[in-house]
């Protein structure tokens, strides 16, 4: 099994995410993380899915995803073929903010992005291993809340969805 990133470009229609996820459900495959957002192109959404499967499975999954009428194009990549990041937010009580915590934040190159009367929110971006490491480090500081996004990714190999759309003749 390998960890793969699937990049999916779709029309922005209701239900499209459901159509994609049932492909996984039906095969009993877990989605490790999922992010959806508008893409650079008007009206086209980009969905990023991370999953751990065999090569045979990923090929099938992507073919099935691409078969969905409202999916424009789907690609899959190994971790080594994508640049990717995840963002994590950590909420800590204001009293825990002492010199040692500040040192941790500096070491990790994390940022305090909000400071309220009762708490601060620290933001940190990286791979899951990195955000996880910071999580473990922050636990002793009476961590109140933690939230982590799915991965966003950019593929290293060159491909262009707009070119693909322009070349659609059929």
């Amino acid at each position: 099994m390998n960890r793969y990133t699937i990049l999916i470009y779709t029309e922005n229609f209701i239900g499209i995410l459901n159509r994609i996820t049932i492909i996984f459900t039906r095969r009993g495959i877990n989605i490790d993380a999922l992010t959806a957002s508008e893409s650079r192109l008007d009206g086209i959404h980009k969905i990023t899915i991370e999953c751990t499967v065999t090569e045979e499975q990923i090929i099938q999954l992507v073919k099935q995803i691409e078969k969905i009428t409202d999916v424009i194009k789907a690609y899959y990549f190994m971790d080594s073929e994508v640049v990717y990041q995840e963002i994590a937010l950590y909420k800590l009580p204001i009293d825990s903010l002492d010199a040692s915590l500040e040192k941790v934040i500096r070491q990790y190159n994390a940022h305090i992005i909000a400071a309220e009367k009762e708490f601060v929110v620290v933001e940190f971006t990286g791979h899951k291993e990195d955000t996880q490491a910071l999580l473990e480090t922050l636990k002793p500081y009476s961590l109140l809340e933690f939230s982590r996004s799915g991965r966003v990714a950019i593929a290293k190999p060159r491909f262009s969805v707009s070119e693909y759309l322009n070349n659609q003749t059929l």
Partner: protein
Amino acid sequence: MIRGADIVVRSLIAENAKHIFGYPGGAIMPVYDALYDYSDQIRHVLTRHEQGAIHAAQGYARVSGQVGVALATSGPGATNLITGLADAMIDSTPLVCITGQVAAHLLGTDAFQETDVVGISMPVTKWNIQVRRAEDIAPAIAKGFHIARSGRPGPVLIDITKNAQTDSGEFNYVPCLSIRSYRPYFEVKKDEVQKAAELINAAKRPYVLYGQGVVIGKAESELKAFLDKTGIPAACTLLGSGALSEEHPSYVGKLGMHGNYAPNMLTNQCDVLIAIGMRFDDRVTGDLKRYAKQAKVVHLELDPAEINKNVFADAPVLGDCKQSLSMLNQAVNPNSHEDWMSKFKELELLERESVIANDLSPTKVGLTMGEVIRFINQYKADDAILVTDVGQHQMIAWRYFDYKTSKTQVTSGGLGTMGFALPAALGAQMYDYSRQVICVVGDGGIQMTIQELGTIMQTKAPVKVVLLNNNFLGMVRQWQQMFFDRRYSFTELDNPDFIKLAEAYSIKATKVSEREGLSEAVADMLMHDGPYFLEVVVEKEDNVFPMIATGCSVEEVRLS
């Protein structure tokens, strides 16, 4: 500006839909009201159950090659379509189903007869959509028809809220010709054809398997030309039957669990396997680990997701097989394969002696399903359509029916839906009253949709129903006999008097229990002008052979 409900009907007319099958209810009533005004341009057939409506639409689509249309109300009306959608999805049947939905402002409130049919039907539709505004109806229907019939066909569901039906909108029908995110066809690549041709030209024991893709792709004459030129033996899948006349010299029989002996056995002896418009269903391949491992595989297929799905293709040819076959026909050498062909003939002889003879001309007292089909062959028209349900009778009818022309086989293949036959036969008959439509069905399956006798009565569709009554859920009983120590757990049926039942629907009915009179009864039925119900009481515990048991390899096909 016209009412949304009128837009629905006029869009269907614009798509050239001549027949629609449906059942009314609150949320679709405006459309029914509109249908009242257009009955001279589009014929609505009122079935007795929404499952009947969608199976009828499937039967219609399969024999016409056109998109079948079904109509239902929200909630239970819509959920009653689900089995048919799943069936059409797996058998690639083009359908557009229109369901009514509660008014848009009630969505999500658990309103009366509100069901999330778009959500429920998602895994069993090629595409679906909910329409909430009158002006969006025509574009959705246009898109639906395009998606249903193009590429690998499939069912589409369009859910229309009641307010969209009653509100008014502009109507200017623009057919949908392309969708930017959707690629139904692929240009066939010359190098792929070339590679396939090289394998075929070098082959000593090439073998063709053809499926429904040939029928859907209207590639029957290209397939025939290919076989005429190359002399390669060819076997068909369940849904491929009819794509090639069984009298063609290349034709060697049928594949799969209850197919013929030689075609299964020799799959593991060919050197090049040429699959055309078929998807290597597990009922065809048996154990994949022991399936045609010795062969190089050429796969002509329109759906990219089918290539390498079950069987790895050494030479895939992506694209419509009408195009790829005609290109391949240019590239292959004329040939004949007499020695190889004679292997099929040898094994066929074995099957004739040990199975077919007893099926078709039994010496025992009880009637066999096979001899009924033999008499049907004797009296039927060349282009008669065979519609079957699911079970032993389906396999026997498929094995012995004389398929002479394309689009003569209507059955539930991938889903194996009992209850399919009676409504599907009705739908097939609605397409063409002049064609013989013979519906072969079991005593179990007919009772799943027997209410459609009412639709046959009302439409006077001249369907010939042949009930092969063994008083058992025969196919399940056969498995119980073979794999569960004859423990006949809940498979024996106490049946009603089917003849009285048919007569209650004013359908002429005859029952035959003895060999004497069978031939005449079949002849009478086929000559009868109008619907007919023939019940044949057959041997209770007959089995279908050959058989490849689940998990076995194609070469473990057994004759008894």
